[in-house]
């Protein structure tokens, strides 16, 4: 589905992504893990067209999509969420979702003047859909709230909700879980699995929560210092010495002192 070939992204002299090559299979839920600063988000940004690569290529279904702007990729079915929530703060949560689908006839000026009927019909359908998503995310009570004024976790939920508004082929989730309540995260995990199974979405998931990764992802790719460190099932990865040293660690040293 997505093939990344020897991708480099340099910031000045710093090599944030330093020759990563990876393949994401259609229909998989691929986990992307790695220490802070490994270059995961940067990799996403390059694939999604937010940043131009220094060198290297990205293919989607065999088509070279390197450097295409994000909005074009969106229409090709590539969606992504942001690690640091990018809500439309002065719009209500419902509007945040309703704006997502592409090709709305009301997005053409001409129709706004002379195609009111059609727009009204579309809007009704959209609103129903948006409300459904809000409900799923347990934030239906926030439909009319400005997105700038909801809690940090709720913003992350909106991030995710946006990807649920359209039929995507591949969705890149950048730490949707950070800051989201774990019970809800489980529900989200279920939804991801459902979307994957029922609608054949492909997912790439960055997460630092190993339980979450473990429940959803196969395969898992671990990055470090801009390169792919290891690839495989989570158990394989967990057993990898390098991964343990760079990323997983060995647990709390001071734990025994707790409650002492």
């Amino acid at each position, binding site marked *: 589905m997505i093939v990344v070939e020897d991708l480099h992204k340099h910031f000045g002299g710093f090599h944030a992504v330093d020759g990563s090559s990876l393949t994401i299979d259609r229909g998989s839920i691929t986990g992307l893990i790695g220490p802070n600063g490994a270059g995961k988000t940067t990799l996403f940004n390059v694939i999604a067209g937010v940043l131009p690569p220094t060198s290297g290529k990205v293919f989607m279904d065999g088509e070279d999509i390197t450097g295409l702007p994000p909005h074009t990729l969106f229409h090709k079915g590539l969606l992504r969420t942001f690690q640091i929530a990018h809500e439309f*703060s002065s719009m209500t949560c419902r509007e945040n979702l309703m704006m997502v689908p592409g090709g709305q006839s009301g997005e053409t000026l001409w129709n706004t003047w002379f195609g009111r009927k059609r727009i009204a019909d579309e809007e009704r359908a959209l609103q129903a859909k948006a409300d459904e998503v809000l409900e799923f995310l347990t934030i239906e009570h926030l439909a009319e709230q400005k997105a*700038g004024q909801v809690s940090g976790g709720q913003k992350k939920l909106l991030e995710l909700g946006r990807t649920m508004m359209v039929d995507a082929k591949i969705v890149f989730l950048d730490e949707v879980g950070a800051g989201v*309540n*774990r019970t809800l995260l489980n529900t989200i995990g279920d939804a991801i699995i459902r979307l994957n199974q029922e609608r054949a979405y492909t997912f790439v998931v960055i997460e*630092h929560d190993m339980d979450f990764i473990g429940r959803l992802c196969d395969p898992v790719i671990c990055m470090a210092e801009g390169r792919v460190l290891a690839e495989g099932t989570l158990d394989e990865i967990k057993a990898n010495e390098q991964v343990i040293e760079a990323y997983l660690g060995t647990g709390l040293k001071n734990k025994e002192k707790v409650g002492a």
Partner: protein
Amino acid sequence: MSNPYQDDRGNKDASITNPKGQGTLTPSPGTRQAMDTAKAFLVGDSMTAGYGNGPDILHDCTIAVDEGEIAVIVGPNGAGKSTGMKAIFGMLDMRQGSVRLDGDDITGLSPQDRVAKGMGFVPQTSNIFTSMTVEENLEMGAFIRTDDFSDTMAQVYDLFPILKEKRLQAAGELSGGQRQQVAVGRALMTQPKVLMLDEPTAGVSPIVMDELFDRIIEVARTGIPILMVEQNARQALEIADKGYVLVQGRNAYSGTGKELLADEEVRKSFLGG
């Protein structure tokens, strides 16, 4: 809606402009859970608060932490955890309730006065100076200190080695997890008497999270009370002396970390099973 004049973009929380956390000083009657807050080091007592002219977000909510203790607040998204932290820090309009620090009523103090009183806080979002270098961020953490803080800085660098590497880089150019480390580092630089952390581990890798928790425990053991909000609730509660579960702005459960972890109901509804 909160503030009609406000620029909704970016991190401009209007509520913060409230120069003094006004509010009546009469503590309201007890919460559902009997809590011994009288002699706690830091206590937000029966707080009722909201943003601007908006509705109450917190309802008669009490949070307290004692010397050398780690208190963890958990709860669903939008429960009011961050709001509670901000209320304790005087960043929004307290409509009822009081905040006491080491026996003093500080309900009327401005946030910067609370900093001077020795409170340190890491907000959940926008918690670094993006245009300043990592080192300058840490220096800003030590802004109110007049002594030599190079030791503390060395400690922070020790804790988060990556920051030392990046110390001359603008903090806005860091990865999500690195930013989080800067944010916590900044708060540690204050050498506060009490430390408040809003989701310090969101987005940090397991290994750093462990380090962070280790460090938090260490800090706590030096006698500094720590109040934190966590979604990595199970790990957090494991090290917590005290846990609060907030639901819709109210204290729903509280107890020791172990107790909460053991509670089936709590586990299922709030800790993800």
